[in-house]
Every structure is written in C-alpha cells, then in structure tokens.
C-alpha cells in the first residue's frame, strides 16, 4: 500500500515541500491543503511591488497552477484543515472530510495578531497577510489620500514606504522610540526613521493607538497621548501569531509555534512542521528559533520534505531576509535577540553599511543597508560562530570572506 503524505498549508513552505517530494522521486500520495483559494504564492511582493501595482500575481506563484496536477499532487485550495487526530493519523477538513496520512507536514504559517483597539472593526482598516488583503489596500491607494500605518515592524515599514511611493500621505504610529527597534535596535532603527522622514512620512513614536473613529468607515485615529490623525484608511501591522490551532489536542508540543527538532520533526511520530509556524531547533545557534521570512519558508519546507522521505539532514541554513523600503535595500542574516556591541563597517549617516551584532566577541547576526554584497560575505562568519576582533569587522580593506575560520584556535 503506497504511503500518503499530507501537507497542511499551501504557501511557500508547504508548496515547495510538495514539489520536493516529487523531485526526490516519492511515488506515494501527496495531498496539499490550503485555506486560501489560490495556489501557493510568495508573500514578499504583497507589501512592495504588488501593493504598488508594479508586478502581477502570476509572478508571485510558486509554480504555475497546472503544475500540481501534472505532478500528481492532489490539491485542496480554499479548504481549511480544522483538526489533527494523531491517534488515527487523520486530518479533518472544514466540511467534515477526513484524510488519512502516513506522514503530515504542518506549514500553516501565522495569522496577524488581533488587537482589541476600539473601532478596529470599522471599514477601511486592513491587516496584510494574503493577496486579497494586499488588493484591498491597493484599492485604497490614490495620490493625496491619507493613511495611518499602525506598527513599524517590517510589514508596517514596507507598507508605509509603498504608500508614500504611491503618493499617499502617510502617518505612522509606533510605540517604540524608532521603527524596527525590536529586531534591529535603536541605532539602526534611527537610520530607518531618517529614511522615512526624508520621504515625507509623518512618524508618531512612543505612542499607541487609543481608538479608530468614524461612522461606518474609519475617519481618524486617536492616540494614547492625545493626538488626532484624520485618515481615509489605515493599515495595522502589529505582529503575527503562529497558526497552531490545528494541532490542539494532539501530543505535539506548542511553544511559540510548533516545536520541532533540527530535522523538522515534532515529538509525535510522523508529524513535521516547517516555515513561519515552526519553532525549530537550530544547530548553529544551539536553540529553538522561529523565523517569519521568505528564505526560511523556501528552504525549510523542502528540508522537512526530505526528512519525511528519510533522506534529509539537519536544517541549518542561516536565516536571511531583505526589506526594500523606498530606494533602499536592507538585509539581515543570522539570529540575535541580545547583543553587547554593534560594530559598524561603513557609514550609518550615508546609509551604506553592514553592522554586526556581537555578543561575547561572536557575530550572531549582521544587518546591511545598501551593502548586500558585504552582508552575503558575512554569512560564513555567522555560521562559524567564532570570536572576531571588532577592528577587523570595521576595516573596509579586509574582505569579510577571509574572516570565517581564521580564529578557530580561540574557540
């Protein structure tokens, strides 16, 4: 009896995993289930090129729509999986259908955090997660219209930039001192703040939204510190929560997402997880990390698929992402939550630098603005997790590629 592998989550991680199963020669059943009606697509354009009407949806598709049928991948798009029965090895779908699996990959991603702000149910207030969300925001865009963007994480920052680039008057509200503070820290956040200000975005920082007001549609936003901002629409980007509901009641451990080992396996035999929803044990960093970015979905989905086939290995890609804002290209590699020194090569003022988050002399992560080549050259250094002298990191005449592996004796 041939095996059946079920993948829940038809996005980049899930879609790529299905493709990998076939590319690796798996001949059993593959069923790909997705709550959204579209075939798997990539999300980075939704806050950027697609939002600005510069690219088409077809360009974002992981595979052409007929690919799945041609490769014998059974698809259930527009159908939500509601529950996993790990005792019977079955997935239950909205509508009552029950699919048996031999192995299950959960790649359900996340859902936007819902915040109980008064008036958030008014028309004209949007979150951004799906292509439909992006299209709704797109329909609001016209030069001279006024928007409030709530939250200056990556989604908020990119949306604010795209709206400005489209001629919208933008005011952002963020509770931190600078945009992107939580991930990138104060110094880098200040650079990002300057970029947004230079493009005419109004930034209201160290403040929070008290209420959205309006009759049926949002007309203004009020803040905790008493500001009133008139607007035609608003976009809320206050973070993501991993979509783990499916596994409630199973033996799978949930802690900041689905807990998996370095092979993307949960503690329950036959159940795997990948992508935004997976809290994965990363061998390089020696801890569990959960990554909500494109490259992780692209690479971890296939890694999980290979492990389902028993022919993979530990997943140890160094996390990496980009965020284009206005004419600037920001990139980050590695993983850090705390650091004791930020070492800069280049110039924050000139907006051309790579900066290293260092702890106990080791480079945990790097962020670059308009210096993608240097960022890429830093990845081996991050992977090596060795002590590197700050002076060498700073020196523009030292090729970063030569710094990994030179100080092994100091370990």
């Amino acid at each position, binding site marked *: 009896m041939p095996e059946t592998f079920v993948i829940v989550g038809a996005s980049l991680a899930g879609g790529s995993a299905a493709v990998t199963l076939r590319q690796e020669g798996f001949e059993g059943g593959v069923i790909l289930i997705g709550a959204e009606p579209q075939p798997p697509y990539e999300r980075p354009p939704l806050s950027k090129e697609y939002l600005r009407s510069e690219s088409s949806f077809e360009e974002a598709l992981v595979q052409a729509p007929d690919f799945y049928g041609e490769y014998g991948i059974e698809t259930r798009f527009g159908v939500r999986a509601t529950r996993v029965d790990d005792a019977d090895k079955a997935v239950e779908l909205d509508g009552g259908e029950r699919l048996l699996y031999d192995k299950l990959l959960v790649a359900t991603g996340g859902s936007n955090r819902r915040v109980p702000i008064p008036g958030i149910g008014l028309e004209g207030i949007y979150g951004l997660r799906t292509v439909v969300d992006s299209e709704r925001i797109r329909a609001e865009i016209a030069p001279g219209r006024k928007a409030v963007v709530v939250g200056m994480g990556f989604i908020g920052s990119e949306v604010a930039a795209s709206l400005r680039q489209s001629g919208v008057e933008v005011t952002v509200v963020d509770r931190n001192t600078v945009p992107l503070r939580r991930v990138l820290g104060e110094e880098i956040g200040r650079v990002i703040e300057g970029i947004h200000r230079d493009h005419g975005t109004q930034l209201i920082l160290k403040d929070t939204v008290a209420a959205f007001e309006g009759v049926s549609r949002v007309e203004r936003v009020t803040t905790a510190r008493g500001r009133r901002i008139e607007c035609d629409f608003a976009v809320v980007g206050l973070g993501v929560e991993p979509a783990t509901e499916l596994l409630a009641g199973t033996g799978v451990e949930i802690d900041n997402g689905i807990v998996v080992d370095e092979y993307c396996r949960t503690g329950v035999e036959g159940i795997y997880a990948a992508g935004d929803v997976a809290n994965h044990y990363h061998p390089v960093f020696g801890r569990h990390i959960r990554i909500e970015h494109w490259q992780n979905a692209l690479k971890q989905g296939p890694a999980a698929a290979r492990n389902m086939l028993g022919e993979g290995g530990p997943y140890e890609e160094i996390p990496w992402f980009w965020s*284009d804002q206005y004419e600037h290209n920001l990139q980050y590699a590695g993983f850090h939550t705390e650091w004791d020194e930020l070492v800069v090569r280049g110039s924050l003022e000139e907006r051309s630098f790579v900066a290293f988050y260092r702890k106990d002399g080791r480079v945990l992560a790097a962020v670059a603005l308009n210096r993608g080549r240097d960022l890429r050259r830093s990845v081996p250094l991050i992977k090596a997790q060795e002590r590197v002298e700050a002076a060498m990191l700073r020196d523009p005449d030292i090729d970063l590629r030569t710094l990994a592996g030179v100080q092994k004796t100091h370990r």
Partner: protein
Amino acid sequence: MAEFVPVSRADALEEGAVKAFDVLGNRVAVANIAGTFHAFDDTCTHLQCSLAEGDLEDATVICPCHGSEFDVRSGEVLQGPARAPVETYETRIEGGSLEVRG
C-alpha cells in the same frame, strides 16, 4: 546584425572578477571564469539590481539585493526569487581587447 563592441582590455578583468559595461546602450556584465569571459545582462530580472555588484562564486553570479543566482554561462536561474533567465552574449578577444557582441 549585432556587432562586437570593445569594452575593456582583456587583462583588466582578472579571474573571478565580474564587471558591468555599456554595450550599445545596454548594461552588460562580463565575468572571467578561469580565463573564459562570459557576458550577460547586468540587470537582474527580479527587481533590476546590478548583478556585477554581487559576488561571483565559480560560475554563479549572486544578486546583491535579493540573492537570486544565475549561471553566467547560460543565464539560467539557479535560485530565486528571480524567475526569468538573463540574456547572454558572445565574447571574443581581439588584439588584447575584450569584445562583446551587442
């Protein structure tokens, strides 16, 4: 009929280097892979970054902005986010001069 256009002295582009030139109004990158010159569109098909500003690893050029990878010999995409290949061009050496067929 496309003609060969001189872009540089051949010995000015060392092994493992990649550099962009103007060829009849097009930005064309030329990579020196073990002494052989490979020419291709400098403009990444994803979001138009200059590929010559990225690194060359063996015969792969890596977009500095979003990490797309192309085989410089065929122009084919080895790694997204780019989907479309880059155009490639013939090269030749004439009297020490590197030429690209535009």
